[in-house]
């Protein structure tokens, strides 16, 4: 699989500028389609690339392959791609969640430790209310999932639109960056404390993060 993707990266460099633009739009659009078998996706993308390279050598136009409506053509391809197995999607979803919490717990632990070395008054022991932590964690996953879904939708929409404007990109940045960030802050500052209280030395967050990372790795291999 990685070999196919790598081969695609190298061969793509042989395309001329115009063909490369059309092909890469199709590539991104097809790769971002949800829940399609990755193996089949990469295989068909490679076949289309090989075919396009031959057309280019014969001085023929990409429209002879993709027709006049590349987006419609890509939709047709996606429609015929087999679905990936549910177990695999679940493992990949679990992997994403584990990586998400691995990063946030590890760096929270790391930052607090670092700050406490630099400034004496920072406490290395924190009190967590279990209920709040659970609700916040769950909400974060939901927010992150919505943001990722929205970003994929946006990226797919922006394929085949020649000359994406700068203002549009900035607008997308605001929506996908500032709004979720704001929501996280609101969530963590205004969520009332409830549930069982536990006292924790903050450095424990780092090994917890590492463990989550390895669970994520394991799920990734299983997928």
């Amino acid at each position, binding site marked *: 699989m990685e070999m196919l993707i790598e081969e695609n990266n190298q061969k793509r460099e042989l395309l001329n500028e115009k063909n490369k633009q059309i092909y890469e739009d199709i590539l991104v659009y097809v790769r971002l389609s949800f829940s399609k078998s990755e193996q089949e996706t990469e295989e*068909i993308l490679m076949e289309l690339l*090989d*075919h396009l390279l031959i057309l280019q050598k014969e001085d023929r136009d990409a429209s*002879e*392959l993709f*027709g006049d409506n590349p987006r419609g*053509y890509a939709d047709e*391809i996606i429609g015929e791609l087999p679905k990936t197995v549910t177990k695999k999607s679940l493992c990949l979803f679990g992997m994403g969640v584990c990586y998400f919490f691995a990063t946030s717990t590890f760096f929270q632990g790391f930052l607090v430790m670092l700050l406490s070395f630099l400034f004496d008054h920072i406490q290395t022991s924190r009190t967590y209310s279990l209920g709040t932590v659970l609700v916040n964690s769950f909400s974060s996953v939901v927010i992150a999932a919505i943001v990722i879904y929205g970003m994929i939708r946006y990226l797919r929409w922006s394929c085949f639109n020649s000359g994406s404007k700068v203002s549009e990109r900035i607008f997308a940045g605001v929506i996908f960056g500032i709004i979720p960030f704001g929501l996280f802050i609101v969530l963590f500052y205004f969520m009332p404390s409830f549930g069982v209280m536990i006292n924790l030395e903050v450095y424990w967050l780092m090994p917890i993060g590492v463990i989550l990372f390895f669970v994520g790795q394991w799920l990734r291999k299983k997928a």
Partner: protein
Amino acid sequence: MAIGSQLLKGVLEGCILAIMARETVYGYELAVKLQTQGIDVSEGSIYPILLRLQKEERIIGEIRKSPNGPNRKYYQLTDKGKRSLQAFRLHWENLKYPVDRLLEEKEDE
């Protein structure tokens, strides 16, 4: 796109199966063979059909080295594909003459 209707898609599917019954082909080769037979369709239209035929296990594709170097995905018929080609042939034979006759009669009027 030169191929739009369901009828054309079905016929093209039958032609693809017929070519693969004779030899193992890869995508571009298949497009060229269809064109030399005079079946003029947009070259890209074969790929969605190849995906569907694979999904329905009527053909199988295998990536291997081609004689002159690069890896290619070669397709061949499965037993299910062979049966499906036979069915297509039968339908086509039964339909071909009546439809031709019908269309000719209309022209004569």
